[in-house]
């Protein structure tokens, strides 16, 4: 059981602040590091992996400082985002080399165990350069697991994977967590995090925006006011009917249709078709106006 602790960590490049005063504690189980692209997720993971010095604050694993301390790599396995991984080696040679670099007592057996864990024993004698993205990701994972680390850091592990590879990797990550490891993965895709992590840390524009149980944060996200654009056969009458319901806070009549601000997402989605049917209005189009991840995040920051 290991714990990764960030205490008031900031990182800046010249005048640009990439990460600003982030404190978080990551314990056993799967934690999702969620944030839009450019939010500072990679910067955080690089600091947790010891590739970047925090400009201020401290990053530790089980009380040991990570920066400039190669001995912590006995406890950490890191799967970098970038795809390249010694393309000229076979999967087996690569994982064995990593086991030897860890000075494991029996590197061959450790490599076989790690390859089996990611189900890469069969293609292990092919060179990495000829692997698919999913296979590369798995062999990178095997290399990170070869020394059986209690902490596993994965930087955008699902990037470029097809749905089948995604499911497989999700199973694998769940398995790692079930074994008592501390697994942290970064992602900018809400659904990925939703399916995998119970605990999430949300980073936006370098700041730590939210932390905790995914369902609670998801509720915050769904309970926020939603904007919809609705076009119908009679916008004015529909507007009157909608504003009468407490699920709607505001309606604006525009040339492109109605702009509706719904405060209770679930109720609004049930009420809208009912209201339309009762008033004999045909709905032409119902579209969310602000479903981008950025708007969800900015709402989270504001709340």
């Amino acid at each position: 059981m290991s714990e990764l602790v960030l205490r008031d960590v900031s990182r800046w490049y010249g005048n640009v602040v990439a990460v600003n005063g982030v404190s978080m504690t990551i314990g056993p189980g799967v934690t999702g590091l969620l944030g839009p692209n450019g939010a500072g997720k990679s910067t955080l993971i690089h600091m947790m992996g010891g590739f970047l010095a925090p400009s201020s604050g401290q990053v530790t694993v089980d009380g040991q400082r990570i920066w400039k301390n190669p001995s912590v790599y006995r406890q950490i396995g890191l799967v970098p985002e970038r795809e390249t991984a010694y393309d000229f080696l076979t999967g087996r040679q690569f994982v064995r080399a990593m086991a030897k670099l860890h000075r494991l007592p029996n590197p061959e057996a450790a490599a076989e165990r790690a390859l089996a864990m990611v189900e890469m024993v069969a293609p292990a004698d092919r060179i990495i350069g000829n692997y698919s993205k999913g296979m590369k990701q798995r062999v990178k994972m095997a290399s990170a697991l070869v020394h059986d680390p209690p902490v596993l850091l994965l930087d955008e592990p699902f990037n470029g994977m097809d749905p089948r590879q995604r499911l497989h990797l999700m199973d694998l990550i769940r398995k790692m967590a079930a074994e008592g490891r501390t697994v942290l993965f970064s992602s900018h895709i809400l659904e990925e995090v939703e399916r995998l992590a119970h605990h999430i840390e949300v980073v936006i524009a370098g700041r730590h925006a939210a932390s905790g149980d995914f369902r609670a944060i998801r509720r915050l996200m769904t309970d926020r006011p939603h904007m919809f654009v609705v076009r119908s056969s009679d916008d004015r009458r529909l507007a009157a009917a909608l504003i009468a319901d407490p699920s709607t806070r505001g309606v604006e009549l525009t040339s492109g249709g109605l702009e509706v601000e719904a405060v209770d997402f679930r109720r609004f989605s049930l009420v809208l078709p009912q209201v339309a049917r009762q008033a004999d209005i045909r709905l032409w189009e119902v579209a969310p106006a602000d479903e981008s991840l950025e708007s969800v995040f900015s709402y989270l920051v504001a709340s």
Partner: protein
Amino acid sequence: MNPVIASITFRAMLSKRRILLLFLLPALLLMLSIGLRASGHADLDNATMLLTQFGLGALLPLLALLAGTGVIGPEIDDGQIMYIMTKPIARPVISTTKYVVSVVLVVAFGVVPMFVAGVIMTGMTAGLATGFALGALVAGVAYCALFLAIAVLSRFAVTIGLIYALVWENLIARYAPGAKTLSIRQWGISVADMVTNATAVKADVASSTAVPLLIVVTVAGVAYAGWKLRTLSVTGTD
């Protein structure tokens, strides 16, 4: 020195297209020396000219640039170095291993061919072949240290190295005598001059200056690379 890192580095160096360049330059030197020998022009003067101008002037710095930057630069650029750096291994061990690999490559593809070319042209006369082999060895050792340090320091290591080898050593040092003092090539010639009796070999830098400078550049280059790697930041994609 770590044997696993060394073997991965050797494989990386020898598996790419750059291997062609590693073979091409020494092959050209050997062909030229065979040509001189066959045409009966392989006297001490011509042999010295070929080994100085082409051997120490082009072959050696280019090979060392290829090896010294190639053992680490591309790995830092594409982030592969992360796999080695996330191991409980002191960072200076990583850089020193990479350095040793680059020196071995320079010896195999630069120093040995220069010795063989010297022997083809002049046999063991006046210790010319041995002198140039030794000069090439010490210059190669220093070049590799310098280029390794630059590769850890900058993404533009190859350009910076080329500017040093081609512009500084070949151009500026030719017209500005003071610049010769800071030329690894001239230090190599100075060491060759210490060993050989051939009068055609003329060093512009005294060995009392060249030898200490060779040692300083080598030690400083390797030490700097190790120190810099300890705090190497691999920046993220965001």
